[in-house]
């Protein structure tokens, strides 16, 4: 997996899985909801990202009890959650610095 900073689609996918295990279509809808419809992933983009995240051990397949619809769910691994938290801290730092700079300029 590429070192952070993460691309926006990957960050949104990780954020979606941080809440609960989800299957592909649920991730697509959740990403769109989280970004207010600004980011709409195609299935090609989604599964390219999922494959990379699986390869790097950031997410894993999750066996749901209800497999009647044949959907495959995914969830964050401990490593993925740790990396997501690192990225969130980086973004927080960035926004804090940005706010300070903007505020200093305005005053």
């Amino acid at each position, binding site marked *: 997996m*590429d070192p952070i900073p993460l*691309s*926006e689609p990957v960050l949104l996918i990780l954020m979606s899985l941080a809440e609960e295990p989800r*299957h*592909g*279509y649920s991730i*697509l809808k959740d990403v769109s909801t989280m970004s207010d419809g*600004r980011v*709409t*992933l*195609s*299935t*090609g*983009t*989604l*599964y*390219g990202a*999922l*494959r*990379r995240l699986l390869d790097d051990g950031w997410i894993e397949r999750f066996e749901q009890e209800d497999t009647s619809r*044949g*959907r*495959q769910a995914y969830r964050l691994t401990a490593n993925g959650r740790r990396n997501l938290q690192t990225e969130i801290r980086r973004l927080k730092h960035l926004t804090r610095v940005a706010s300070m700079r903007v505020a200093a*300029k305005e005053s």
Partner: protein
Amino acid sequence: MLGIYRSFLFLYPKSHRAEFGDEMLRVFAEAERDLAPFGTLVRAAFYTRELAGLATGALEERIRSGTGVRSWEVFPVRRHTVRSEFRFPKFTLVLMTVILGAIVFAIEQATAIRNSVAGASPHVGPIQPVHFTFLPAILLCFACAYVAGMVGWAILFALRRSGLHRLDAMNGRQE
């Protein structure tokens, strides 16, 4: 449309298709079903996005499986996540219209040439599969598009009109 989607999946390496093919098809079918109440324009945008996503995704997978190189090492533009919310759809529509117009014009020209020199051209036999392979043609198109994009960006950079220069100019104005 499911058939077209399935045929685009064949652009992917076999391993990726075996692992995710059925799942991708299922997700696409679900998304398509949920679009039923929407208009033609929304569905057209959805199909365009899906097929373009498949084509670029397949290219990335081919590069990765063939060379082991990650996509963003080849396509550095993926690392930049800042983008306009409003400019892209309009620009895409204009671009698609221009491309469609060019294709229609080319077909009309070819038809006119064929009609004006009827019988002058020697007979051409059926095209054998060995003379045309779909995947190399697609890869060549992507390579050309990528090179054209890089050249375009280099020209903008040389003219100091790239995004970096515009940001610099904005910062300069704010200061």
